[in-house]
């Protein structure tokens, strides 16, 4: 009994720091509508800065000064990010801000690496709070008690700030209706900077307070941002009270989950999120988002002119001749690029015409890859069965997940897709007997007529071209028009008798099938499958490719995949601090082409054609 109590108290301490980080994320989203992917980075900055100050100034003043310095550093950098970057993007599509913050994630990772090196840092323990007290016979660290008290104190402070100050009232007003707030004379740009400062300050404080509880390392950003997203989504976007409740729930889940279901600890949190979102689509305390004012339909997608078709055909013909000149390594690179093109194109069907943003598209890519590899390993069957199995299993998975996902919209939908992807990832990671766990499945080679690198390349080219053409046909078929109608004005589409959800569900399944095909191709191209096929960074890569190219064009994701893969894999791995370079390039591209690369080109072209 007392053991359970100790576990409960540890869960409360965990909940406190989760709450600090998540409330900052929630406040930022509520006011600016920006999904701040870099929130975990500010958490990491807070931890590193605090640790560094505390280790440099070895005293009680150093420790507490370090906590303050960590929080302030994160807050100030958050304000700088708003002024220098996000401010220029408020008129861009929402997802561009996400992409920009992802660029910041990469830059911060390398900046921290350059400043503090690759080794984990171990911070000092909190002076005066190093001991333990016995509560009901169980020793409880004093620092945990301190955190337990701090969480509610910060919660109360935020409540007072938002309800008892003019600034707080303005922030709440802007959360509900930005345009009306501006029309009443409120300067939003100051408000936004201040909100980013506060939100990132809270993230930095959460990170700084972690230093006595664990090591400070370069992976804490992604780990935290995913957890914070879960808390925010479970609690309800923009609701600080909801974040508090959800942090308590998730904190306890982590404390007790490990006792009750040790083998599915990784899935548990995401299962709970999925259940909450299915039962309460806007989180525990969230409200349905107000429809964007004066929301305009996306630009009309038109078939490319005939010359573009001929150019594409010429390009494919040139690619088909590539084995005549290219060596094995170049062919592997081309094969990988083609696979990513199909992956990006499948995600585009979801995001562009479907209007559904997925943070977990890797689920279907990975499911396809595992389908091929499992058929190979457990049934002993080769490519002839493994490759067709890939889109089938992925489509089956997407069919099930899609049924739940299309009931939501916006960030909630995106988070539910992430939940499904994380659940699949956990299964692949923890079900070692079948999937090989972290070691993956090796030796998945095509064999037979496609054993030669060039032959497999030609097969990939043929399937990818067929896939891209099929996706294009879907977009311009009546099904695609209906899908776009449902995206642009769901109510009007429903009034016409269109079952919008059903169409979205079909699109979700189709996108899953094509991603699965890409995954299956990838398994045979590399000869191996790992849980990384399913993990969040693969999903993010897909998002970056689609957004970089442009969501509202068909060629966009193709160009985005080529540019991204070219940048990431082939050029930057040889450059020190390639992450920072890639992040910098993403930021520059986002600032230079707020409509995506192809979007910008066709916009320019369209303008000149009009005039």
């Amino acid at each position, binding site marked *: 009994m007392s053991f359970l109590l100790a576990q409960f108290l540890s869960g409360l301490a965990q909940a406190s720091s989760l709450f600090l980080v998540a409330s900052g994320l929630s406040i930022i989203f509520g006011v600016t509508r920006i999904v701040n992917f870099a929130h975990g980075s500010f958490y990491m900055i807070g931890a590193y800065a605090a640790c560094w100050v505390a280790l440099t100034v070895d005293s009680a003043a150093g420790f507490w000064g370090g906590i303050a310095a960590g929080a302030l550093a994160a807050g100030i950098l958050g304000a700088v990010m708003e002024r220098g970057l996000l401010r220029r993007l408020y*008129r861009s599509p929402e997802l561009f801000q996400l992409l920009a913050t992802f660029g910041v994630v990469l830059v911060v990772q390398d900046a921290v690496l350059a400043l503090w090196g690759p080794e984990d840092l171990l911070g000092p323990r909190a002076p005066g709070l190093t001991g333990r007290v016995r509560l009901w016979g169980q020793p409880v660290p004093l620092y945990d008690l301190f955190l337990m008290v701090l969480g509610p104190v910060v919660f109360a402070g935020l409540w007072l700030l938002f309800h008892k100050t*003019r600034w707080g*009232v*303005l922030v*709440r*007003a802007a959360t*509900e*209706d930005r*345009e*009306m*707030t*501006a*029309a*009443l*004379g*409120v*300067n*939003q740009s100051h408000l936004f900077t201040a909100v980013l400062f506060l939100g990132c300050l809270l993230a930095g404080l959460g990170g700084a307070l972690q230093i006595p509880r664990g090591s400070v390392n370069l992976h804490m950003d992604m780990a935290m941002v995913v957890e914070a997203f879960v808390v925010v989504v479970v609690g309800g976007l923009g609701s600080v009270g909801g974040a508090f409740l959800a942090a308590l729930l998730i904190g306890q889940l982590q404390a007790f989950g490990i006792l009750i279901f040790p083998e599915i600890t990784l899935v548990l949190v995401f299962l709970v999120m999925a259940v909450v979102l299915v039962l309460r689509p806007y989180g525990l305390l969230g*409200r349905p988002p107000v429809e964007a004012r*004066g929301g*305009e*339909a996306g630009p009309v997608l038109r078939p490319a002119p005939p010359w573009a078709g001929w150019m594409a055909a010429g390009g494919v013909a040139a690619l088909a001749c590539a084995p005549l000149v290219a060596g094995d390594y170049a062919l592997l690179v081309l094969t990988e690029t083609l696979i990513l093109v199909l992956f990006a194109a499948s995600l585009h069907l979801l995001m562009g015409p479907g209007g559904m943003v997925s943070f977990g598209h890797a689920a279907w890519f990975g499911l396809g890859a595992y389908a091929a590899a499992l058929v190979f390993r457990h049934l002993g069957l080769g490519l002839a069965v493994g490759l067709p199995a890939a889109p089938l299993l992925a489509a089956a998975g997407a069919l099930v997940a899609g049924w739940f996902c299309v009931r939501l919209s916006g960030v909630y939908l995106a988070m539910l897709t992430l939940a499904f992807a994380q659940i699949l990832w956990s299964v692949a990671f923890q079900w070692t007997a079948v999937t090989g766990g972290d070691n993956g499945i090796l030796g998945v080679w095509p064999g037979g007529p496609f054993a030669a690198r060039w032959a497999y390349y030609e097969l990939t080219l043929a399937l990818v071209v067929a896939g891209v053409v099929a996706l294009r046909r879907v977009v311009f078929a009546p099904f695609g028009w209906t899908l776009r109608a449902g995206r642009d004005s769901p109510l009007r589409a429903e009034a016409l008798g269109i079952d919008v959800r059903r169409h979205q569900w079909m699109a979700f399944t189709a996108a899953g099938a094509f991603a699965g095909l890409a995954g299956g191709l990838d398994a045979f191209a590399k000869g191996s499958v790992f849980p990384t096929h399913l993990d969040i960074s693969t999903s993010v890569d897909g998002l970056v490719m689609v957004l970089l190219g442009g969501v509202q064009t068909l060629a966009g994701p193709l160009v985005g995949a080529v540019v991204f893969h070219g940048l990431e894999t082939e050029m930057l791995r040889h450059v020190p601090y390639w992450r920072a370079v890639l992040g910098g390039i993403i930021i520059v591209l986002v600032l230079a082409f707020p409509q995506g690369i192809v979007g910008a080109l066709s916009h320019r072209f369209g303008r000149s054609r009009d005039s």
Partner: protein
Amino acid sequence: MTGDALLVVDDLHAFYGRAHILHGVSLSVAAGEVVALMGRNGAGKSTTLRAIMGLVEDRRGRITFAGQDISRLSPHRIARLGLGYVPEDRRIFAGLTVLENLEVGRRPPRPDAPAWTVERLFDLFPNLAEMRNRPGGRMSGGEQQMLTIARTLMGNPRLILLDEPSEGLAPRIVEMMADAIATVKREGLAVLLCEQSLPFAGLVADRAVVIALGSVRHTGWMGDLMADEGARQAYLAV
């Protein structure tokens, strides 16, 4: 009249995407004057107000307010110059209380405009005084309409853009609105009012500007328009 006009709109065009909504609207409002902008559904009344307020991204033409060119300013700068905006759909902050809604609108008083306080606004709309701490989302439509006007008045504007204040309200509330407009006019405030209801406009407006399909068709005294059966038939009859 344009000589001492407070608000002058000259050849205003507005676009939503590719749709060209306003085709060169010109009008003016003098200090202390109530002008009714009339026209059928879809004529461009609301878009005119939104464009003046800087809420239509794609707008062309010259708008001057109190002698200053505001055609390129952002909405909050326009508001701070003393131009208030009351939207058609009220846009009360549903999660904020009545007092908090008013707080959002509060701006420092200016020498050339009537100064409003919360208590003075509660005198103007006594219903609001009884629900100071009620969230905006739990008010009736009429109460919300009062609150949205009061919220804009908290900015101590010199002119308010009032979009269809009588729409969808009970006759008793419509009368209160007319009284309120008469009161703020007595205080020296100018009003540019979008209205479909001729009786309501006739009650409160000095002049009328009639638009159809995004351009001005008729400008004149309100009384003359009320008396001119032909003009009413041509521009306003449904």
